[in-house]
């Protein structure tokens, strides 16, 4: 028994609490669950105006005229702006290709495209004024799929393209195309004992973050603007915003405000430029907050995809070849489409050994809603299809699906289709073995002494079955995701770390531009600083553009890259502190010169544990501050014809086993359990790691059974822009989520860590699909699966 108040040992260089490997609690956690956290939509400024965006009501049309007279005459309205009112010649933006007009010019290319903006002294006034803007459209023919995009007489979504992909694409309505050819797929097909083909469709998923797009732009006295914004990458925004405003980047001061989730949906700009334009025009602070309806139009979605696959295998279960063609619908503007294409192509075979491949991935321009980044980024669509194929081939060979995957599982040293060797642990077979070995959830858990517990059954509280028609199924899947930005991108982060003595205690301040979007970066970054500098008290400063870029909070990269930058900056700080110590105190103890020195528990200690000095005595009044950029290993572009190249930084792997129960008569699904095993290299914060894995798993479940933005094929208009009809899993749809975390270090990465956030989103969906196929015996070639697909009533 521990006695409270009993003396404890003096801290003698024992490890600093709250360092890496501990499940420290996130500083924003309690605030968020109690509703105290200030999100971007909660901001307020004295005398502020409210901005409102008028969006197109049609998907593709020429703008014949815009009449803003009545809107401007509305009392309370301060400004109405259209394309013609933009202050400079830079009137487009975009992540890679600047093809997106700030406000529509002469033409709208998708349903919900911004046409005009209004600032008024009340949000309702702004809404009503926007509704009074008269826009005359002359509708144009629609591009909605590959056939209409590449037809001989196809309307060009973007004329006169000059971007760096325009030269190599087979048609101007194709944003980017990436082939990958390795070995000889034709010859290999000749060796195959079985060949299995399949066509698959992946529906359009929304990030559905809970905090809608919002921000506050405050005009500065110097003619600049301060923008408080919920985003994923401040500096990327800045580079796109400043030229449109005609301001140098240092006059657009950006600060991250409370972000309510992102999942890729905040990589592109939404209302940033609009709010700044209105603030600069009116001289007043302007706040813009989307409502849920507008949010469905205000950010890009996950690319829907059509995928054709051909797999061959020998009788003994070895893959001979894979041929595939992945057509992603990028919608009206490029957004992240080129990079999504690169991912889809390079990861299209999955975590398997296959020497002979013939791969093509491309993204279309169309008049559908723009699509771009979302958790899993091109790898998700591919995984859904190749895992369905792996099950089909296994069935054809009479092999157990897990055994078939084990036979073909890649390992460290395997070459990717791009020719890149996987040069860190790739425990694909082990992850599958682990999920398969987990105990099965008991059968018929719905049975109780008081009859059926409908909450445990398909349909849940809707009381559709008491066990009738319910069949169990089990499915497995495994996936591979790249970590960090690829294809030669200069993917760096910047960290500023300061160490000083305050009130007799050593204190560390970490300043980066890393966007905390809920992933837990602020928690893990403080853990890194504690570990490296041996100081308990760490303050993470608000992210802003007063420090260098941290890169995007995407691609599972912030723990790796900004974490790496903080580790590196801490190491430089430590060197300087020890230098100071040697200078000031070196004569007091020979170990200053001879021993390996560490900072632990607020002290300078030798690697043998002997305390040499208190940090505060070393520092005295000195402030040690370092700001440094940090880069992971460089990557290179994929060859435009063969797709060969060391394009990725790191790979991450996760495997799932899904257990579902399907009401086969009504086509309703209850996922009973989704077990996951994932290799994370090193769990810097085990609780956060499990949270990421469970969250990614549920997001994958959503796309398996319910989440889909439905676009009308005739009008290209969104049919379900609300949470009434775009369904997300509730807690009753969320099964037990056992997680098995593997920690096999990647020697190239800080602490050996591996990016965690995306891999679980990949394999979750195909595992659920496989389980539903197992329960129903149906082929199921699209996701999400809806009741009509399971009952022959589609």
């Amino acid at each position, binding site marked *: 028994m521990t006695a409270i108040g009993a003396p404890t040992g003096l801290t003698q260089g024992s490890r600093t609490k709250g360092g890496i490997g501990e499940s420290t609690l996130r500083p924003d956690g309690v605030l968020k669950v109690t509703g105290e956290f200030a999100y971007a939509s909660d901001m307020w400024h004295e005398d502020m105006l409210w901005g409102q965006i008028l969006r197109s009501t049609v998907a593709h049309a020429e703008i014949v005229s815009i009449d803003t007279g009545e809107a401007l005459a509305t009392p309370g309205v301060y400004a109405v702006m259209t394309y013609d009112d933009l202050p400079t010649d830079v009137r487009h933006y975009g992540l890679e290709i600047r093809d997106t007009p700030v406000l529509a010019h002469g033409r709208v290319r998708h349903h919900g495209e911004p046409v005009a903006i209004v600032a008024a002294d009340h949000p309702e006034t702004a809404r009503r004024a926007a509704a009074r803007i008269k826009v005359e459209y002359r509708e144009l023919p629609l591009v909605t799929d590959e056939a209409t995009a590449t037809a001989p007489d196809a309307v060009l979504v973007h004329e006169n393209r000059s971007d760096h992909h325009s030269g190599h694409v087979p048609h101007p309505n194709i944003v980017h195309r990436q082939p990958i050819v390795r070995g000889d797929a034709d010859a290999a097909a000749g060796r195959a004992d079985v060949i299995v083909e399949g066509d698959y469709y992946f529906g359009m998923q929304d990030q559905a973050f809970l905090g809608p797009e919002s921000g506050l732009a405050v005009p500065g006295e110097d003619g600049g603007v301060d923008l408080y914004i919920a985003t994923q990458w401040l500096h990327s925004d800045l580079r796109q915003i400043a030229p449109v405003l005609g301001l140098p980047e240092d006059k657009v001061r950006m600060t991250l405000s409370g972000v309510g989730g992102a999942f890729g949906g905040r990589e592109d700009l939404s209302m940033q430029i609009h709010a700044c334009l209105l603030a600069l025009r009116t001289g007043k602070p302007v706040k813009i907050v989307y409502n849920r309806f507008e949010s469905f139009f205000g950010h890009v979605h996950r690319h829907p995809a059509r995928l054709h696959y051909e797999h061959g295998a020998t009788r003994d279960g070895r893959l001979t070849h894979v041929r595939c063609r992945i057509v992603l619908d990028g919608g009206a503007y490029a957004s992240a489409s080129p990079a999504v294409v690169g991912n889809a192509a390079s990861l299209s075979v999955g975590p398997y050994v296959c020497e002979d491949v013939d791969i093509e991935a491309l993204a279309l321009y169309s008049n559908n809603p723009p699509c771009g980044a979302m958790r899993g980024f091109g790898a998700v669509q591919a995984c859904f299809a190749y895992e369905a194929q792996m099950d089909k081939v296994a069935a054809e060979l009479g092999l157990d699906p897990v055994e078939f995957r084990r036979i073909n599982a890649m390992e460290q040293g395997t070459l990717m289709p791009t020719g890149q060797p996987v040069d860190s642990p790739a425990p694909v077979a082990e992850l599958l073995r682990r999920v398969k070995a987990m105990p099965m959830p008991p059968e018929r858990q719905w049975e109780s002494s008081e009859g059926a517990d409908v909450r445990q059954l398909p349909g849940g509280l809707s009381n559709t079955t008491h066990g009738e028609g319910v069949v169990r199924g089990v499915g497995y899947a495994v996936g591979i995701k790249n970590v960090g930005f690829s294809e030669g991108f200069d993917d760096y982060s910047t960290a500023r770390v300061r160490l000083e003595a305050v009130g007799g205690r050593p204190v560390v301040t970490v300043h980066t531009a890393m966007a905390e979007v809920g992933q837990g970066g602020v928690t893990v970054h403080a853990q890194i600083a504690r570990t490296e500098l041996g100081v308990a008290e760490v303050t993470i400063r608000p992210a802003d553009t007063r420090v260098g870029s941290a890169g995007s909070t995407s691609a599972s990269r912030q723990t790796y890259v900004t974490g790496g930058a903080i580790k590196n900056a801490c190491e430089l700080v430590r060197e300087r502190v020890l230098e100071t110590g040697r200078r000031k105190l070196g004569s007091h103890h020979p170990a200053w010169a001879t021993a390996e020195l560490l900072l632990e528990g607020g002290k300078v200690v030798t690697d043998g544990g002997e305390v040499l000095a208190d940090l505060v005595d070393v520092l005295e009044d000195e402030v040690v501050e370092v700001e440094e950029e940090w880069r992971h290993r460089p990557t290179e572009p994929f060859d435009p014809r063969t797709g060969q190249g060391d394009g990725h930084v790191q790979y991450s792997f996760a495997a799932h086993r899904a257990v579902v129960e399907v009401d086969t008569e*009504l086509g*309703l699904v209850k996922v009973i359990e989704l077990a996951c095993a994932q290799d994370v290299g090193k769990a810097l914060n085990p609780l956060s790691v499990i949270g990421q894995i469970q969250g990614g798993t549920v997001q994958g479940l959503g796309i398996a059974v319910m989440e889909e933005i439905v676009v009308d094929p005739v009008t290209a208009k969104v049919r379900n822009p609300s949470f009434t009809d775009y*369904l997300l899993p*509730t807690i*009753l749809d969320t099964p037990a989520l056992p997680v098995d975390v593997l920690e096999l270090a990647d020697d190239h990465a800080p602490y050996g860590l591996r990016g965690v956030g995306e891999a679980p989103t990949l394999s979750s969906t195909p595992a659920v699909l496989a389980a539903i196929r197992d329960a129903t015996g149906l082929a199921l070639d699209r996701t999400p699966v809806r*009741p*009509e697909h399971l*009952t022959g*009533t*589609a």
Partner: protein
Amino acid sequence: MDFLRPASWEEALAAKAEHPTAVPIAGGTDVMVEINFDHRRPDVLMDLGRIGDLTEWEVGEDSVRLGASVPYTRIMENLRTELPGLALASHTVASPQIRNRGGVGGNLGTASPAGDAHPALLAAGAEVEAESVRGTRRIPIDAFYTGVKRNSLEPDELIRAVHIRKAEGPQQFSKVGTRNAMVIAVCAFGLALHPGSRTVRTGIGSAAPTPIRATAAEEFLNAALEDGGFWENGKIVTPSAVKRFADLCSAACNPIDDVRGTADYRRHAVGVMARRTLTWTWESYRGARRTTEGAA
């Protein structure tokens, strides 16, 4: 927009007479969504929240008089015995927060075919108590729904209460949605056995322009039960009769294809729910008979 807050029922009726276009709001489940989505801009909004007796209910000899604003949560907690079908339906409405606010009066006022209460009201048998400064009338539930989101209320009338027959036999309610909670109906089905009158009543939601009863199915089943002496002998209803009943319920549907589901699926699902709810209620009826006989 004018916002009226009558302090009493009489004031509300007077205001409604003066402003026939006034939209009454109680829980706001439908009205607030329509306003937020800008689907509706009423000139006058009339808040019924100050009228206390709308949230009260009385259990009478044969029926329950349910105030228009009694929240679904209260129905689930307090009227499970008297109104089992409606209690089950209430449990499927949205989220706990909305069930704490919303009531049957709003469902009736909106008269959406997807309203969760309708199939249960149709199956149980109910009358809507509508009132205006001109007087009170009771509208049989079968005559209440007149079209898509239209009902037989006069412009100056307000819904004060619903009179629902107390259950004298088992009742069931099933609803299909594409997630396991907090979902709007793709289609729904209510069924009530009325041993006293030896009749079965049904209600179908979201599978026709209005909530409907499957009248032909009811007539078929009533005759089949009567002819076979099932009400007395408590035998298992023959599978062929159950199937015929389910088929007739499907046939009663006149659904559309929309973003929530296909017409074919709705027809199919209504048939499955009809078969299952008939089986559940009839099993329960037989069980109750056995218990009664055993005690006698």
